[in-house]
């Protein structure tokens, strides 16, 4: 009789097929271990080792001082652990460190494709929209946001002239 691949103790009664790093693997488990794998144990397994892990090693070897993102406080070593960024500013913060990673993942470093519609609107439209937002911010007494909007509108009007 086949024994469970995890506990190597109980007879294996449940078979899992999973795809890890593009390879089909078969796991034979006992019901107990299958249950332990979580809520969806009969179909789902969390594939061990993400796609990213081989790329993440050695990312921070050359950087002695810990850099932290101003937007979210994430450090490079934290990124290395999870493979996930904390906020959109992280891309700017760790730009020099992640270029190699992006290149290896995608074979490219520059976006080609659609842009948010907001970037395509005319300056006049943008001013009009921001003024609407400003009114709303004042009405809701969000003064900090209002100040930012006021600056933006001023800057856009200057650019128009």
């Amino acid at each position, binding site marked *: 009789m086949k024994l469970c691949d995890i506990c190597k103790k109980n007879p294996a009664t*449940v*078979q*899992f*097929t*999973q*795809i890890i790093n*593009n*390879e*089909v693997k078969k796991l034979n488990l006992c019901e107990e271990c299958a249950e332990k794998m*979580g*809520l*969806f144990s*009969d*179909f*789902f*397994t*969390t*594939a061990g080792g993400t*796609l*990213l892990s081989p790329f993440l090693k050695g990312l921070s070897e050359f950087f002695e001082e810990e850099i932290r993102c101003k*937007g*979210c406080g*994430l450090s490079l070593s934290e990124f290395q652990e*999870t*493979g*996930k*960024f*904390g*906020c*959109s500013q992280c*891309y*700017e913060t760790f730009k020099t460190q*992640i270029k190699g*990673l*992006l290149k290896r*993942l*995608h*074979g*490219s*470093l*520059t*976006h*080609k*494709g*659609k*842009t*948010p*519609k*907001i*970037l395509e*609107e005319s300056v006049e439209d943008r001013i009009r929209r921001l003024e609407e937002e400003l009114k709303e911010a004042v009405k809701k007494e969000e003064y900090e946001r209002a100040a930012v909007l006021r600056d933006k509108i001023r800057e856009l009007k200057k650019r128009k002239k």
Partner: protein
Amino acid sequence: MKLTSFLKKEANWIKEKGEDSDIIVSSRIRLARNLKNYPFPARSKKELQKKIRDEIISKIKKISYLKNSEIFLIEELTPTDKRFLVERHLISYDLAKSKNIGAIVIGDNEILSIMVNEEDHLRIQGLNPGLNLFDTYNIVSVVDDELSKLLSYAYSEEFGYLTSCPTNVGTGMRASVLLHLPAIVKTNQINMLLESLTRLGMVARGFYGEGTKSLGDFFQVSNQITLGLSEREIVDKLERVVKEIIKKEKEVRESYYKREKFEIEDRVLRSYGVLKYAVKLSYQELMERISYLRMGIGLGIKLPVTIELINKIMLLSQPAHLEERLGKSLNFNEQEIERAKLVKSFL
């Protein structure tokens, strides 16, 4: 259980549509988007996650295409509800597991859906039956355009749409096709196929997407590269690869059938017998049997079932679908009995 209304509806993606419906099940497009001014969900505290969710939902309500959509808050769903949505391919396994303050917005006919606060603030998804990547992309892209006028997206001229995981940055797009490849699997050629996909910048995942296992010889083939290619280029490339895989599956089926005609016919018809007369059925066994039936239909073996009926059985006999339909939770044993009853009623 808030989802019983869904049981009366047919999931759009199980319909039999277009050529090769014995091999192609469905096409999916997913766009990952984030808001500029907030940390990504994993790095936001609960109150902030709630604020982000409220802001996104208030904007989603303004989109005319999503006028009749239903919105569910993740924390108000039971584990069975969440699993039900995963089974319907409307939310990811990750969101179902997650403790984030999230939401799922489901549009008419379940074609369009938006996950809020999964790994990214927004995951806009389109799902259609058959090989239909371009139309699906167009629907998703229109909704994305509308949302981009109402929400400030995290976007950089250099890296495109900024996402929590660098594997999604750029277009933020994952295009995928759910394929049934029994002959390639049963003749042990699947690992070879998966390897060649990697070289093409493509990847195959299990039946329920990322982090899930393969079931009944179904695979989701999708693009790996998201930066440096336009959305159209990604879709185009995937479509070409998928057509190659279909061609290969057909070739392998034909020679396999020529070589082992009686063996295959025996397995296909026995599978029908098991589904029709079994008293207990595990989902794993059901999927193995269904795999033979689908392949049998593809080979022209006479069977009193259609692909659409098989897809329906596949959908409705999943654990959470059984539980929602009966309105109670079932243990493993009860589940197998109820599944066999349901399947029998269709055959």
